[in-house]
Structures are given as C-alpha cells and as structure tokens.
C-alpha cells in the first residue's frame, strides 16, 4: 500500500517553472519569509491528497489506510532530507506549536537534571516564550547575547551550558529576520560535552540552506518553503528523551492528528525545494548581494546581518530618521510588499527583539525575503523605487540635513 503511494515522491522536480502568485498583477511580493507562496508541486500534491487522503489515518478501513500511507510516505521523505530515522519525525499543527511542544517535552523529560533553559538572544519569540513558560520554580532563562551581526558567541554559549542545572538549550540554525547563520555545530558540540539536549530552530533555513546533523531536536516550517501553512515538523533523535506534557492523546505532538493533505504537500514541496536548492541559492545570493550594495548607497542606512555567513534569500536594513510604518506603506503604494521589524509597523509598541539584541537601529527597518521565483527585474525595479520612497518619508517627517 505504501509503495503505491510513494509515486508522487519520485516526481521530476527539475525544470519546473515557478512563478509567484503576484506575477502579472503589478505587485511584487518581497516578504516571503515564513509564508512563501505555494510551490506548484505542493498544490498538485495537496489536490491529490484531497482525493486519496481525506479519511482519518487512524482508522483501519481501506480509506483510512490510504491516508495513513500518504502520511507514512511524507514522514519517510522528510526524514530522508533531514538525515533522520523515519520514526524520529513528527508532524505538528504549526511551527510555533512545534517549538512550544519541543521545549516543553524536553524540559519535562529533563526535570531531574535541572530547571534552566539556555537560549540565544535572537531566537524566535515562540522559543523565548516557551522557555519562560516551562521554567521550573527555581529555574532561570539564560539568554546568550548576540553581536551586531546577530550571532551568538560560542564561548559564551558554552559557558552558559556548562553551568549545570540546564534542562535544554535552543539555538536557531539561522535568523529569519536578518539572515545571519549561527554556529550550531560548535554549540552542539559544547551541548554534547555538557550533556544538554540542543533544540535547533531550522524554521528559516530548511528548504533554503543545508541544515546538517548538529541537532538533538529540530523544528522546521513548511510554510517557509512553499507548502501550506497549518503544519509543522519536529524531529527528535531517538537518544533524546521527550515526555508529553498535555492531556492524554495518542499523538502528543499533534493532539487530534494533522491534515494529511497539508503534510503530504509539505513533504513534496520540501523535496522540490531540495532538488533546486543549489541553483536557487546561487541566484538569490547574487540578488541579495546586489540589494546590499545598492541600498548601502542611500544616505544614512545601516544594512544589518552578516554579509556572507547568512541565508541566501534574506536581507534587512534600517534607515535613520525614517518611520518604518510609513515606509512600508509608501512601498506598498508603489507595488512592493516588504516586511519590517520596526515597532511603528506592528500592533505592538515593542520593536523587533532581534534588532534590539543586535544593538542596531530598530526604526525605519525593511526586511526582505526573496522567493525562489523572485526575478532580477523585480529586484531592480524595487531598488529604483526605494531611494525615492525613503526621501518621501523623511520629507514627511521634516528631516533635513541631520
């Protein structure tokens, strides 16, 4: 049965023309991090799974078994990309749910060893909040600072790990806001020496960069590589003990089960992303290099994040004396969708904790995550429009000669 449903995993991924849903609409979407447009093969896989995998995979009848086979095939495919055993891979309802559950389940299993949680200062908010949530009554969250590029210091991280009483540690593979990669191999080595399990958040990396084997628990985000939102991936090594923390459920990582079509599409999209990763990397890396160089020519700008040790598709910069919300709106009016870590843009008053931890400007921030389908022409048009948009916003604020 499984064999019959493995067929979609042997698709030819090469030569697939990927176009952005905004293509031909006059809009250019440069905010693809964490919510990329669906890969065309994800759409095909999803539709197939609606026909073949609609039933409850826990049931024993033919329809249920068919859905279970799709799920098993997806699990095997994801494990293959991660270099993990199939049984080490679990699907969850979202990336946030993955991070919450991973922190909670490892902390619970490690109760006897300690109540502290070590994190990098630029971890995703979900990791920081989960760490605070699971702290033992006498436990502390130990936050390892990052430098101005957004990277943790290996020695500082190792010192925090060796203090004793640490339940678990978390470090992102790369930062999704500024693109900087983290020294996960060295930190994983230090964590092994200290006997502390390391959770690696690969949510911004998998599908874009080689993640490697330096993790004990890994979380990845299908919506980031062109699969539907509403599914997350966790892999926990067999040697790493986890203990379910919620109410009794046969599937503690996803109480009530997951959407089979979403999981199936996630696995197919991951395979597709992996198949042209090297090509997409070179193309997008060159585009980001061009963005970094041309943005740096605009007066009073700080291009942040490591210029070379970074994700291929992410770039961030902050303009002095610019209101981030006004700039996002101005660019939107010109047809470009960008992200921002400025407080002035969000419903919250607090700016991006990542930019704050790096000690770089938090206002006037623009965050770009290129899709695989982003073209050079789109990037060039954006770079043509940007200086004027910045000047307009500065003019609105009455900034002159500062």
């Amino acid at each position, binding site marked *: 049965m499984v064999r019959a449903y493995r067929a979609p995993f042997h698709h030819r991924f090469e030569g697939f023309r990927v176009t952005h849903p905004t293509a031909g609409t006059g809009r250019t979407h440069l905010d693809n991090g964490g919510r990329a447009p669906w890969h065309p093969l994800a759409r095909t896989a999803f539709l197939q799974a609606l026909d073949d995998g609609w039933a409850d995979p826990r049931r024993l009848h033919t329809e249920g078994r068919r859905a279970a086979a799709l799920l098993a095939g997806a699990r095997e495919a994801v494990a293959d990309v991660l270099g993990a055993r199939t049984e080490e891979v679990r699907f969850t309802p979202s990336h946030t749910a993955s991070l919450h559950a991973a922190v909670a389940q490892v902390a619970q299993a490690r109760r006897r060893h300690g109540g502290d949680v070590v994190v990098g200062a630029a971890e995703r908010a979900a990791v920081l909040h989960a760490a605070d949530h699971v702290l033992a009554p006498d436990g502390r969250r130990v936050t390892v600072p990052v430098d101005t590029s957004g990277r943790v210091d290996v020695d500082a991280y190792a010192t925090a790990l060796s203090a004793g009483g640490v339940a678990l540690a978390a470090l992102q593979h790369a930062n999704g806001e500024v693109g900087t990669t983290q020294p996960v191999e060295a930190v994983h080595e230090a964590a092994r020496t200290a006997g502390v399990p390391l959770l690696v958040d690969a949510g911004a990396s998998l599908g874009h960069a080689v993640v490697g084997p330096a993790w004990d628990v890994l979380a990845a985000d299908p919506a980031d590589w062109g699969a539907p939102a509403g599914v997350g991936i966790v892999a926990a090594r067999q040697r790493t003990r986890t203990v379910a923390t919620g109410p009794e459920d046969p599937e503690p990582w996803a109480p009530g089960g997951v959407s089979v079509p979403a999981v199936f599409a996630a696995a197919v999209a991951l395979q597709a992303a992996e198949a042209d990763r090297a090509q997409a990397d070179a193309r997008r890396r060159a585009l980001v290099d061009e963005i970094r160089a041309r943005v740096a020519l605009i007066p009073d700008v700080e291009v942040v994040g490591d210029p070379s040790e970074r994700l291929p598709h992410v770039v961030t910069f902050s303009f*002095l004396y610019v209101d981030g919300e006004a700039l996002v709106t101005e660019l939107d009016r010109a047809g470009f969708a960008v992200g921002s870590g400025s407080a*002035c843009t969000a419903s919250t*008053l607090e700016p991006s904790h990542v930019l704050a931890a790096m000690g770089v400007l*938090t*206002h006037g921030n623009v965050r770009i995550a290129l899709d695989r389908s982003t073209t050079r022409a789109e990037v060039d048009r954006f770079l043509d429009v940007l200086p004027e948009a910045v000047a307009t916003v500065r003019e609105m604020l009455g900034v002159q000669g500062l």
Partner: protein
Amino acid sequence: MSTDEAYDGHVVDARGLRCPLPVIRLAERSKELPPGTEVTVLATDPAAQHDVPAWARLRGHAVTGARTHEADGGPWWALTVRLGD
C-alpha cells in the same frame, strides 16, 4: 522621582512621541551644539532605548547615561549622549 527636573543642561523632551521622532528631535538639537556637549533625551517610546545608542554609534557620539523611570502612565527613559566631533 519620575519628573524631568532631575535632568539639567540640554534636555530634549520627546515623551509622547513615537519612533523615530525622539531620535529626530535629539539629532536636531545636537546639530546646534558644540562637540563635547551632553544632551539628554526623554522618551516614552520603548524603541528609543535601542535607537538612541544606535544613532550615537552611527554619528560618532557616546552614550554616557541611560535610566528607566517607572511612572503611573507607564515607563519612560532618559538617555544622555556626549556629542562627538
């Protein structure tokens, strides 16, 4: 005490203004002052805690003081910079 009386000399009261206005007001005042002068900006916008030091670094000024004040209407911050050349 959460009043600005504690701050004498050059004070820019940017309380109630949202980012990036506290930094803009501070930059405007700094332009009129000679190198070596200390200027203090008061701000209720939390981004000022990060943006004033970042601005100082970009402009060659030095942060010489940073204080948080707890007040009934919420916290506010006082950041002092010594102007560079």
